[in-house]
């Protein structure tokens, strides 16, 4: 029933849905058939995570909102996802670099959350942990191929890394209402995962023969509902049909 738990669960769900939706946009556009399948797999995992998280959020809220009410009938400003997840896909290098950077954070995150005192979140985390461990491996393998591939793939990887880096800082921010949850053993301290994330990223970049960008100013806002201009356009499309028929069952 607690509002922080609702808000927290919703943020986890938004993270998963928004990135899953972006990946689903690759459908019939991927560079190989095998990668078509892999991207769909990752997207399906994320949409699946979003579904159980939204359902649980609706339960926690106790006002009878379903997973679809939460996904389709909230406005942009009510979404609490990371900004990095909502950025348009860009080229394949951008998609791969983002997936690697985000998965390198989500893997230890879910691992830590398996120890949550909230049994539902712990169970969701246990399943997600396995899934994200594949996402990370897959993205890392590609990043190594692209970084240590041709001149063009290297150039594109560097550009993507440079473009994405300022969006990574937000992953480690703790929204105020999450601190108490973390102290109560329900949520996870995001900032505490920075070192592990850094090591993982460094390892991948080293194998990919790519330099780690320097930390500079970091973008922020998603957790407070202050997004990029991209989320609005994405939700306009995503929610269009559901909103055109309020109350309908699909």
């Amino acid at each position, binding site marked *: 029933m607690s509002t922080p738990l609702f808000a927290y669960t919703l943020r986890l769900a938004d993270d998963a849905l928004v990135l899953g939706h972006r990946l*689903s946009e690759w459908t019939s*556009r991927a560079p190989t058939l095998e990668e078509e399948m892999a991207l769909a797999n990752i997207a399906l995992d994320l949409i699946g995570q979003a579904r159980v998280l939204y359902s649980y959020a609706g339960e926690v809220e106790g006002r009878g909102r379903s997973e679809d009410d939460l996904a389709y009938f909230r406005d942009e400003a009510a979404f609490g996802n990371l900004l990095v997840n909502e950025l348009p896909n860009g080229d394949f290098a951008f998609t791969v670099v983002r997936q690697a950077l985000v998965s390198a954070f989500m893997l230890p995150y879910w691992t830590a959350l398996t120890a949550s005192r909230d049994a539902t979140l712990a169970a969701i985390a246990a399943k997600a942990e396995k899934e994200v461990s594949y996402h990370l491996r897959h993205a890392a393998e590609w990043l190594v191929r692209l970084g240590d591939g041709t001149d063009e793939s290297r150039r594109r990887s560097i550009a993507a890394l440079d473009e994405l880096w300022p969006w990574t800082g937000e992953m480690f921010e703790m929204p105020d209402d999450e601190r108490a949850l973390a102290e109560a053993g329900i949520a996870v301290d995001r900032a505490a995962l920075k070192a592990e994330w850094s090591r993982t990223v460094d390892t991948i970049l080293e194998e990919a023969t790519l330099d780690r960008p320097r930390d500079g100013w970091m973008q922020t806002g998603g957790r407070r509902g202050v997004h990029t201009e991209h989320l609005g356009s994405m939700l306009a499309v995503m929610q269009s049909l*559901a909103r055109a028929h309020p109350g309908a069952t*699909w």
Partner: protein
Amino acid sequence: SVLEARFQARIDAEEKIEPNDWMPAAYRRTLVRQISQHAHSEIIGMQPEGNWITRAPSLRRKAALLAKVQDEGGHGMYLYAAAETLGVSREELVEQLVSGKAKYSSIFNYPTLNWADIGAIGWLVDGAAIMNQIPLCRCSYGPYARAMIRVCKEESFHQRQGYELMLTLCRGTPEQKAMAQDALNRWWWPSLMMFGPSDTESVHSGQTMAWKIKRFSNDELRQKFIDATVPQGHFLGLTFPDPDLAFDEATGHWQHGEIDWSEFARVVAGDGPCNRQRLAAKRKAEADGAWVREAALAHADKRRQRQAAAWRVAAE
């Protein structure tokens, strides 16, 4: 020839032909054409359905549609692999698709215009595909038959899912039911065309029947499909866009009106609503992905060289 006679005898005995077995060049050619055409259809078929993934009206449907489209990619993969056992590479086959030399099922040259089209494709298009494909599970060429067993299992799941989607719409709001009717109106005739020209017109049938690649005629399969589908449509409370559709008590079959074969011929020849769009999208995906495929090759190459160098060092 003796080889040919022995080959035909094996076919007649319902033995499976395997990749390393001797086979007539025409048999091989026919199979390559049919299997690759089938693979291409799965790949191009991802586009019209993919068109609605970003707008699917519930998360459950979004996931189901994405999974379905992914299955189609998988079918494409098994089928390309089956074709490769006949000595062509996937690259060659994709090149034929992209260049416009190879065909794919003409049904995918029609657009998906409302959400019910996703249901209609599952119900009608996958339904028609299954009718065509179930006999192929007993096809004389082993790798193709085995691929089809896997494909058919998934397709029949898709077909049920599509019908369930239609049912939900038909039991929903009037607007939803109208979508379902609109989709049926647009997909019914093209679905019937999926079985190919009428038996009186069909060119390849005789030999492929003898080779047990094909086991039923186009018209037989079409009739099976109609007989199975019309009652389903009536159960949905929908009307088929064919004023001549009538049940023939004598034969126990549904009779249908005349199919517009000029439309079929035209769309096959390239002048359908989406032919250019589908090919352009595929070409763009191939072109946009070229640098990625090159990078993967280059990296694999570097890796091999590094490994070879390491071995040399170890050997010294």
